[in-house]
């Protein structure tokens, strides 16, 4: 990839060109818009609708959705205690996104570093890292999480840790595979011949090429981790009340399926929309970040021409 400095290649992409490429893919555009709104709602929610997530109104117990008679806050109905579903969903989005992003950041940093080390240093250390990854991979992650979370109390910190640990192997393996291929490339050898030490070679010449792959992986992983956290919370061993996430809301609404379907349906719908948006955006990113496929998203390229 010696073309990095050529105009129009990886390094020289302005924000405007990225936006233009996003506009070429309507689905990815919608996904980005949804995620942007979601993050804004999560960040600004408490300021916009202070305390309405906790305010009970027993006259509105299980109020049905899509009725404006009770004000726009109750557009998605109310829960069993008469709290606004919309406000609850926004409140839950904060912890849902927080848990997932901390877990992904943690496994990205630790897994990426371990993977780079395992690719660079040969010897028993690398073997140990890889064997550990194999062991983690070969066992169903949910079971591991179930065992650990029952042992230690299911606090937010422990859930983030468990989720991060179960996702480590993915980053380790991907980073290592990329490094193994990159370290034999001409420009890496050139750097080494010119006297760059192993640390400088790794940080300046190799890691920048691994990062885009790992970032795309992180976007997909964010969706995966969100689903895992929701599943744990749903089983009752994830986030505990009074904290609330979407998965927990589905679990709490499960008992009212016959009488108030919206209690379980809407939180699940939001999980689905968020993960779907992340996956759509990640598959767009894979094309947009690849110099050989990018033409599909540029003027003149044939849109909808799947790679």
């Amino acid at each position, binding site marked *: 990839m010696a073309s990095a400095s050529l105009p129009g290649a990886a390094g020289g992409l302005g924000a405007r060109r990225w936006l233009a490429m996003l506009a070429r893919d309507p689905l990815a555009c919608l996904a980005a818009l949804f995620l942007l709104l979601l993050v804004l709602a999560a960040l600004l929610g408490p300021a916009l609708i202070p305390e309405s997530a906790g305010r009970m109104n027993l006259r509105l117990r299980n109020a049905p959705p899509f009725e404006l008679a009770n004000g726009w806050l109750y557009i998605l109905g109310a829960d069993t205690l008469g709290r606004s579903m919309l406000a609850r969903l926004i409140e839950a989005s904060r912890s849902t996104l927080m848990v997932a992003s901390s877990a992904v950041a943690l496994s990205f940093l630790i897994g990426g570093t371990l993977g780079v080390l395992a690719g660079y240093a040969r010897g028993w250390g690398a073997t140990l890292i890889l064997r550990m990854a194999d062991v983690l991979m070969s066992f169903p992650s*949910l079971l591991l999480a179930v065992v650990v979370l029952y042992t230690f109390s299911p606090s937010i910190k422990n859930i983030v840790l468990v989720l991060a640990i179960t996702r480590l192997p993915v980053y380790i393996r991907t980073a290592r595979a990329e490094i193994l291929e990159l370290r034999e490339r001409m420009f890496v050898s050139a750097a080494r011949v010119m006297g760059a030490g192993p640390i400088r070679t790794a940080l300046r010449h190799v890691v920048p090429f691994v990062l885009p792959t790992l970032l795309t992986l992180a976007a997909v992983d964010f969706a995966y981790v969100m689903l895992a956290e929701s599943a744990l919370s749903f089983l009752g061993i994830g986030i505990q009340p009074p904290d609330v996430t979407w998965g927990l809301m589905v679990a709490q609404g499960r008992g009212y*399926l016959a009488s108030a379907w919206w209690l379980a349906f809407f939180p699940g719908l939001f999980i689905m929309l968020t*993960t779907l948006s992340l996956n759509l955006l990640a598959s767009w990113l894979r094309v947009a970040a690849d110099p050989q496929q990018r033409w599909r998203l540029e003027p003149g390229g044939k849109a*909808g021409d799947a790679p």
Partner: protein
Amino acid sequence: MGSFIARRSLQSLVALAGLIVLVFFAARLTGSPADLYLPIDASVEARQAFNEKHGFNDPLTEQFGRFLVDLARFDLGHSIRKDRPALEVVLEAIPTTLALAAVTMTLAVAGAILVGSLAARRPGGAVDRLGSTLSLAAASAPDFWVAISAILLFAVALGWLPTSGMGTFWHWIMPVGVLLIRPFGILVQVVRGSMLGALSAPYVKTARAKGIRERTVVFVHALRNGLLPVITVAGDQAAGIVNGAVIVETIFGWPGIGKLMIDSIIQRDFAVIQASILVTAAIIFAMNIVIDLAYGLLDPRVRHA
């Protein structure tokens, strides 16, 4: 080939050993079973007697030693909850889950081969676009929510299917359907990718030039080569199906290993937790080795050195 299997087996054994240690000590940390099995107002003496009887008073190392000796004799302890040997309880639940997993994986692989091959035949065509949208949606769907929504629609609103339990053919539809989503979505992508490669190979051109029917070209000539990566991924997915089984079995009241595990964790039935995790892990590790072997048998080019 022989040394490869030996190495894989050794690796699995090490993993299993690590798991045994983790499971034993993790289960002991969850709290005292005496609090759960005796009435709240049980006397201190009664608690003592209970702990004495089940050996919970001995030092942990001693308990662990005893656990290992018993393990060597295939004695995985006694279920406190059911008052029966733990292994017996677990082995009773295993076939239920295996049946569910087998039906699901068969349908997922067959469906994915069909949809994936058709999608690869015309990249960008209608089947391809539908297939990739479906598989993306499948990778994004929270399975517990799909399960609940399915109950809402088919059992509560329409009344077509039973909500839980097993027995008739109708009981299988929702659990299998929900469990199918994740592996199907991933497999469609894998089949499509590897068939795209296979279909552009020279031998496919030759077969077409000879005038062989298109169906035969795609599903016989190309598929045989395109199938190899599919087997690997299907193996991974089959192991991961345990993840889904825990949720599906809990929601649909399916008396399999996933439900057993959750129930015994809540009831602090140590012996059954240990037994079910060890048996599940052993099955998964055995399956991984079988898949590696199958890979070598199916593809003469991959004879493990």
